[in-house]
């Protein structure tokens, strides 16, 4: 509890995404709009999935705890599927918008490419998902209280922050890969993204056995990062050029 935990967890959870926002999105108004619209689409998916879960809860016996837990797990998986559906819907919307932008511009090309939109859309999903998971927990961490007073884990806040960070980055990478898959009509890519998302959600079901959930999720995040890098056109050469050019520039300057 207290300010240290609050700031620590806030920076862990939101630091990278905030940095990404400031350095890549904030300067361009179109990207900001795409980001916020992405957040909106994620929110819509969450709304619909919680509606379904709510109906299921109300229709069932509230005393039966294992049933409630089962329904919650169902809610989790259904929400994941719905998020991917809305990601696809957002892809279609952005394609249409891109065509519109291209049609009216001078040289028949829009100012933003599909890859950039994929990245920004993924970031929007990630930021909103992270915010919804983390903000209430953060505000609770400011106030008085004892963590794990009923025997729960002491590491609740930090693991929540780490998981949120992983999910935010994952959403960004999934956005890039997903849109690329849709562009090239590679359906196995889309299936892989959906499968990985389900896997990550499933791993989180292992909580509070954090050894079972956090390391695998981070391994998946790293893998997705590499996949997204190569999927968006990066190559080993460009990485190499980045390092050597910087060195060469540093030497020449």
């Amino acid at each position: 509890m207290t300010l240290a935990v609050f700031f620590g967890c806030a920076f862990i959870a939101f630091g990278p995404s905030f940095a990404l926002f400031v350095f890549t999105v904030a300067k361009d108004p179109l990207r900001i709009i795409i980001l916020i619209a992405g957040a909106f689409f994620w929110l819509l998916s969450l709304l619909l999935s919680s509606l379904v879960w709510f109906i299921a809860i109300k229709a069932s016996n509230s005393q039966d705890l294992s049933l409630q837990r089962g329904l919650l797990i169902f809610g989790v998986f259904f929400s994941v599927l719905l998020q991917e559906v809305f990601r696809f819907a957002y892809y279609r919307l952005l394609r249409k918008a891109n065509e519109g932008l291209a049609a009216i511009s001078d040289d028949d090309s829009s100012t933003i490419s599909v890859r950039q939109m994929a990245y920004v859309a993924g970031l929007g999903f990630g930021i909103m998902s992270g915010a919804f998971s983390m903000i209430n927990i953060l505000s609770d961490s400011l106030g008085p209280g004892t963590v794990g007073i009923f025997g729960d884990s002491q590491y609740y806040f930090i693991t929540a922050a780490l998981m949120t960070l992983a999910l935010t980055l994952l959403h960004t990478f999934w956005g890039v890969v997903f849109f690329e898959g849709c562009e090239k009509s590679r359906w196995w890519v889309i299936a892989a993204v959906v499968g990985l998302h389900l896997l990550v959600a499933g791993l989180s079901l292992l909580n509070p056995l954090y050894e079972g959930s956090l390391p695998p999720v981070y391994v998946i995040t790293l893998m997705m990062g590499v996949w997204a890098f190569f999927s968006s056109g990066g190559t080993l050469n460009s990485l190499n050029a980045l390092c050597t050019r910087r060195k060469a520039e540093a030497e020449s300057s």
Partner: protein
Amino acid sequence: MADNVENAVNNVSNDGTEANRHAETGNTATPGRNEVELNGQPPTPRPPQVVTDSEEDEDEELTLKYGAKHVIMLFIPVTLCMVVVVATIKSVSFYTQKDGQQLIYTPFREDTETVGQRALNSMLNATIMISVIVVMTLVLVVLYKYRCYKVIQAWLFFSNLLLLFFFSFIYLGEVFKTYNVAMDYFTLALIIWNFGVVGMICIHWKGPLRLQQAYLIMISALMALVFIKYLPEWTAWLILAAISVYDLLAVLCPKGPLRILVETAQERNEPIFPALIYSSTMVWLFNMADSAETRNNSSHPVPQQENQVVMAPTAQPEDDGGFTPAWVNQQQHQLGPMQSTDDSRREIQEMASARPPPAEDDEERGVKLGLGDFIFYSMLVGKASATASGDWNTTLACFVAILIGLCLTLLLLAIFKKALPALPISITFGLVFYFATDNLVRPFMDELAVHQFYI
């Protein structure tokens, strides 16, 4: 593409009359477009000609190229206003305490025994409030039509005075109480005096753009806080819903008061009355022959430069102060419904703003949004943070919903190019998301957080 063709036709007609610089009253189909053309055209008057496709595309592209920028130019102040309101609500408990005191426009109490009685009372309250607003709007339109500019200006002046001095005094007092800061009256008087006078000068006369924008945001936030405090629960939601409907009707119906106001303003080719409008760029007076007359009438608001964004704050809650009924519409763009009574007026003005001087780059075109819109957006988000049990999730959801609504409204504006109300879409999204998030998403997220499941 039909829109494009129509725009092309309008371009032609507007180009032809550009030299006269009079708004086409006959061309009521797109009154806004006239202004846009007048304002946005480059200095050299285009000879009337058939607009080629490239020109039309260029215009379209210009509109859209500036569209994203305009949206962001409005996102930032709306976000700031909401942040101020939410920060105040979360820290200063005064604005969430129900003292039992209510505005005179909402006389019925909501602490009744039965739900039915409460519903009835809140509906009556909302009806009274909306009718007051409608009446004030009509009064304003009548005053404007009969050129009683002095009355309107005095009204605006006094309501601004009240807001900048009295309300901010109360606000400051409550903030000091919350943080237990000791303050003597002399220092307080100095602070309030300076704040108020600089505000009046910035808003009604000249001042740096950012300062004026900051004052307008502060005033909108103050007004929204007053509403959050003094409107009872159900009444507030009903008023939000009703005001969006009224906004829609008043701006789009042919006989709507706001529409009449806009058209009258366009007929007279008058500058935006420095009322409740937030503008993102400096507003320049157009150099028209008859502008001298308007200059005489509205002395303060027409500096040669400076933004005209003036907001007319609404009057204080207790008495009837002058709330300025929405000045609304000035111009071209959108009109907000006039909200009178304590609230503010909103005018929605979107679209390219006031006329840049000829030498000015097209880049300088700004956007305008009525202060009433700020107030109601902030009121919605403030109420979400004050009363929702889902707390921050609900606030965040309403925030995103309102921004998306604003974005869509601006998109429609870019497509239709006429005055559009800014409230309906945003408030509808905001209300839907508030109730849905509070009742559906909150339990779901709470359960997930308890078990630390992640979706």
